[in-house]
């Protein structure tokens, strides 16, 4: 069926997407938070000399990075639901958090290992314990170094939340699909969703960039 695009719909219907946009944002931020927590923890496990920690960490990273995120989402939502009922939103946060955790763990591991060995030696020589040296000396430098890659990962997460539409979460993509199928103005609604996504990712990039330049004061 031929139907001309009506771009005035984009402006008119833009506010209709606000609840879906908020849901997308909540989903993204919760997943980022959970993923960063998991990532930090797993990166330490991965660095650990103890096999009890580093082997499970490696297995986790291999499985998560080696399988599709949509499959992981389905496993948490449909797969586990046969044992234990989970609402779509927490299921998505868990799936995205666990997924991101694997990537963030590798980002942190690389950053921590890139810090000169002399930093840890200098801290330990002052009598600092290993955890304190990690927290006070290594991590601040590692996080700064990890920031560009972390920012990238966060932006991927924002975009990946669109997959939550597959488990009935009415975020931006599902919202635009549903509205589109009510009047076949798919293009207009998809553009609205796209503008929201782009706004979020651009804002996030900007914020990460701001933090980067704030942390760069000690460089010159």
């Amino acid at each position, binding site marked *: 069926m031929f139907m001309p695009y009506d771009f005035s719909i984009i402006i008119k219907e833009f506010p209709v997407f606000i609840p879906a946009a908020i849901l997308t944002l909540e989903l993204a931020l919760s997943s980022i938070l959970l993923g960063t927590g998991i990532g930090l923890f797993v990166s330490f496990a991965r660095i650990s000399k103890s096999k009890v920690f580093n082997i499970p960490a490696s297995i986790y990273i291999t499985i998560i990075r080696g399988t599709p995120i949509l499959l992981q989402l389905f496993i948490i939502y449909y797969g586990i639901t046969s044992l234990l009922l989970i609402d779509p939103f927490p299921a998505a946060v868990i799936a995205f958090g666990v997924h991101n955790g694997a990537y963030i763990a590798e980002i942190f591991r690389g950053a921590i290992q890139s810090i*000169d060995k*002399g*930093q840890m*030696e*200098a*801290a*330990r*020589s*002052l*009598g*600092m*314990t290993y955890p*304190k040296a990690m927290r*006070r*000396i290594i991590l*601040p*430098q590692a996080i*700064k170094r990890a920031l560009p890659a972390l920012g990238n990962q966060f932006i991927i997460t924002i975009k990946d939340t669109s997959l939550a539409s597959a488990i009935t979460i009415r975020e931006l993509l599902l919202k635009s699909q549903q509205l589109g199928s009510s009047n076949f103005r798919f293009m207009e609604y998809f553009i609205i969703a796209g503008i929201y996504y782009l706004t979020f990712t651009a804002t996030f990039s900007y914020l990460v960039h701001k933090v980067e330049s704030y*942390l760069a*004061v*000690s*460089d*010159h």
Partner: protein
Amino acid sequence: MMTKKTNKKMVEIRDLHKYFGELHVLDNISLQVFEGEVVVIIGASGSGKSTLLRCINRLEKADKGEIFISGHRLINKESYINKLRQEVGMVFQHFNLFPHMSVLKNVMEGPVQVKNFPKEEVKREALELLVQVGLEDKANNYPAQLSGGQKQRVAIARALAMKPQIMLFDEPTSALDPELVGEVLAVMNDLAKNGMTMIVVTHEMGFAREVADRIVFMDEGKIIETGKAEDIFDNPQNPRTKDFLGKIL
């Protein structure tokens, strides 16, 4: 000026052995360093001098033998090692300043974070230390803004802030441009005059001759010869010492 050398053994090393894989880097090392003494360890690279220094504050773990720090045996216990390291200041070849902290924060980090001393008091003492190393005007700069010589002087102040009983210097001037070596040696010279017990690994033979109470010459993981600076430099007994000094002097 404090009284120099006493009979108190600050560091005692007994029959120390250390291997890196097949390589016997420390081969039956025994050494005593007394309070207020400045011992300079010389030798070719790969002779084990840095490893020996790093064993004293347990950055390296010896495979055999014993180390005593002011009478306390170095045991294999994390909390004990952390305690001991507070008494042993270490200055590295590559400074290893904390780049994300200002000069002042670098100097304050140990006393505040390790000894939990009140910040205000630590800050006052840190500023005094910066005066002592001639860098009071750099307190709020970051390490990246300093020259190598300035960095090393901050590193010395950072180690001194812990009020250690012993200072270890691991080739403190080897990474410096020649014109910056003097300012670091001057600070070390002052420290020595004020009675600090020091063990210094260096290639600066002028400094060794002038400041060292004792020279230790190492080769292939062994202490080959030890004695007063003038004896070692002017009248070396061992052919290997002669050979080494002949190459560098």
